[in-house]
């Protein structure tokens, strides 16, 4: 097969795949008697059309960046951490325990401590499957899924019997103290202006104290931590000895042993990092948005994370872009459900098509393009 030029490989192929996914999605919409153009405009408007919309899109993207990175680190070691949702849930537990432990004096201190808790709990939940894989060869694909269910059961138990404040009806922890509140986008001075609310007369709306009012969005400082995580993961994988050993092991376990790389060490470290990244997702949704621990806090983000890693070609930059795309689909899909007759389930259909075309069928596009470039090269 002809090798594609780099720009076509990393730019054109995903673009064509996405276009195909969009075309098939349009076909599905037509088939259920809806207008694709209307759907597209609602999605774009709902996910990108305003700072409010962006606030949601980037919130989702933040979670997907963490889950995508977690999948990627394990993947580079040749491991498929498919049950990372359990690690993310445990990360949420870590965040909750840290946040509820003290009346935190300032959010920065609380954030650092909560990140530590999230990473520690997430890593700990990945450690046992990792050890079983390294020592006994138990496939991580199965054990991490089992651990996902254990995590869910554990969380329900803790929420119902331990963390639930007396008199509260729903299985959730108490609200976190005010000192553990991390700034959301509308509370960050530089970004604040974007979220200012205006009245119908075009004048800024003021609250009772005469101060400007802002749109509430869930996107929060965790977004910047996610970007930093992308950079760190990139440096780790391609510029450190550890990353080198992880990638070498992932390509060939046999050869890694020849080179003196210990499989036990690499499996453990890669899974601990993967689990920690999965756990860190909880900073975004538990600490940054819900501000208390609820059931299924990580729900769904994990499988999108797998798609994000796949579409991002297991590279942090690709993951960032793919995470934003899936954030768009997630938020735009929600807007579809709210503003049109199109059922919200269609969001899943569109996501599925994007995964199908960018992941599974991406080789097809590549082959067709390869033939095209080969022909062009020949003439």
């Amino acid at each position, binding site marked *: 097969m002809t090798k594609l030029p780099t720009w076509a490989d990393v730019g054109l192929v995903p673009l064509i795949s996405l276009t195909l996914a969009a075309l098939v999605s349009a076909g599905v919409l037509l088939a259920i008697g809806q207008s694709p153009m209307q759907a597209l405009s609602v999605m774009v408007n709902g996910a990108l059309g305003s700072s409010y919309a962006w606030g949601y899109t980037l919130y989702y993207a933040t979670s997907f960046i963490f889950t995508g990175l977690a999948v990627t680190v394990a993947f580079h070691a040749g491991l498929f951490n498919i049950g990372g949702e359990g690690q993310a849930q445990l990360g949420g537990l870590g965040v909750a325990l840290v946040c509820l432990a003290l009346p935190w004096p300032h959010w920065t201190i609380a954030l650092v401590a909560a990140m530590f808790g999230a990473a520690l709990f997430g890593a700990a939940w990945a450690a046992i499957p990792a050890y079983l894989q390294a020592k006994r060869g138990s496939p991580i694909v199965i054990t991490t899924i089992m651990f996902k269910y254990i995590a869910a059961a554990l969380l329900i138990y803790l929420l119902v019997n331990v963390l639930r404040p007396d008199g509260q009806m729903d299985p959730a922890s108490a609200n976190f103290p005010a000192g553990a509140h991390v700034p959301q986008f509308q509370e960050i001075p530089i970004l604040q202006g974007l979220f200012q609310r205006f009245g119908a007369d075009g004048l800024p709306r003021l609250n009772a104290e005469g101060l400007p009012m802002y749109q509430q969005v869930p996107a929060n400082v965790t977004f910047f931590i996610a970007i930093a995580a992308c950079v760190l993961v990139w440096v780790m994988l391609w510029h450190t000895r550890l990353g080198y*050993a992880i990638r*070498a092991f992932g*390509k060939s376990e046999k050869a890694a042993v*020849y*080179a*003196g790389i210990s499989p036990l060490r690499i499996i453990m470290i890669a899974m601990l990092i993967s689990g920690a990244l999965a756990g860190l997702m909880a900073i975004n949704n538990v600490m940054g948005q819900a501000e208390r621990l609820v059931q299924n806090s990580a729900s769904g983000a994990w499988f999108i994370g797998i798609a994000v890693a796949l579409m991002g070609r297991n590279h942090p930059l690709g993951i960032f872009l793919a995470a934003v795309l899936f954030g768009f689909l997630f938020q735009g899909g929600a807007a579809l459900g709210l503003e049109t007759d199109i059922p919200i389930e269609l969001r899943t259909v569109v996501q599925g098509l994007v995964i199908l075309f960018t992941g599974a069928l991406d080789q097809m596009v590549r082959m067709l393009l390869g033939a095209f470039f080969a022909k062009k*090269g020949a003439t």
Partner: protein
Amino acid sequence: MAAADLGGRQATAALTSPYAIELKGISKAFGSVQANKDINIAIPRGTIHGIIGENGAGKSTLMSILYGFYRADSGQILVNGAPVTIPDSQSAIRAGIGMVFQHFKLVQNFTVLENVILGAEDGPMLNSSLAKARKILGDLSREYELDVDPDALIENLSVGHQQRVEILKALYRQAEILILDEPTGVLTPDEADHLFRILRGLRDQGKTIVLITHKLREIMETTDNVSVMRRGTMVATVKTTETSPEALAELMVGRKVLLEVVKNPAKSGEIILSVKDLAVKDEHGVTRLKGVSFDIRAGEILGIAGVAGNGQSELLEALGGIAPASGVVVLNGAELPLTGPRANGKARRDAGIAHVPEDRQSLGLIMDFAAWENVAFGYHDDPRYQKNAWLMDNDALRADTAAKMATYDVRPPIPTLAAKSFSGGNQQKLVVAREMDRNPDLLLIGQPTRGVDIGAIEFIHKQIIALRDAGKAVLLVSVELDEIMSLSDRVLVMFDGQIMGERLPAQTNERELGMMMAGMGAK
């Protein structure tokens, strides 16, 4: 496809031309690389025609064009005098061309019979096809010494037998022209001889055989005519009886090549490595290496001869820190741990052992990694490759790779190219560069020239001898007796995990070693 009975040779148009295959002006480029440049060749019917050239000379590309894997950018293919287009392998089969690949394309858990009819079934029900194939296979095995048990599972067959199945597959599809790509790379000398008997039998029945190889001896012994390729062009086609190995080698490489190894007498010194009762069990608990003992001195090459699979690989893996072992191994006076966490490849490298593994593609290199990443392989903790406590110095690594590529003549000298993009010989040079450049006290080197072209063989042999002359110890494992005989200062013969005896190359011959390799002959 309807498979008529075997006698039904290619019909009508056939015998108008004396040539089975003619290629006229074939050119093929991959991007900026011109793999084939205006190739012209005519292969007479009923001959064995050798195509020889270094790795990367364009032999495989040419055959892939003939078999429909690639389409030529320009040029014409004539089969039996009639122009044909071969867009895919089905067309090649219809034109009477059969191909036996270097890596077999057999279904491991199918029987021989099932593999033979796969893709050539007569209908949805298999019974009639199987019965017919059984009869044809019987005829073929009688006629050509192609005996294989039709009901054996492929996974239970030796490599030599699997190759026969590939040939049978082609013949069952009524191939008149049989292309074999490096067929002896995986065979023992005995199996190779058998293969050549089969090929001569096929030729005598009027089939045309195209033999792609880089082994001069096979060309000289087997072929009627030989074409030499170099850098994408066909530089010569000659009658085999009118040429010599030296002349062919020169045509292949484009310069004079020394086929004989030149070396001074060994000046051996201190004992570097002392091995006592070294034994290795495989993962199933079977003892593969059954207590071997030997010493290697400084400035000495110890050759281990033997048929593949008689414990040589385990010996290398035990000494290289890959497989746990029992026994005593002393290097420079210090005993090496043979089990536990300190028995690993890195600890052995730190102790002064370099290891060029037998299988460079699955052990010695990460094929998807760039050359510079492979140069760090096993040495990625080396302080020279670190920028600071946290980061590796990838620029230093690339610079070091460029320097090694220049010293060891790795082509193309592009450090960022993936290992899989290099030819076999250049991959091996990359591994040799990495391991030898460390100036190790002991070099373990397995099959140093397997799948390596002549120019590179000469180079690698020179490097091994240079290391010896610098007062280092070398343990050489090779299934090529020529190589063992010409490089080694002493030869140990291994059979069934044991050492059958020791000989000096000057005082033995291939026959004696061959007997010992087969387990005969006492110490």
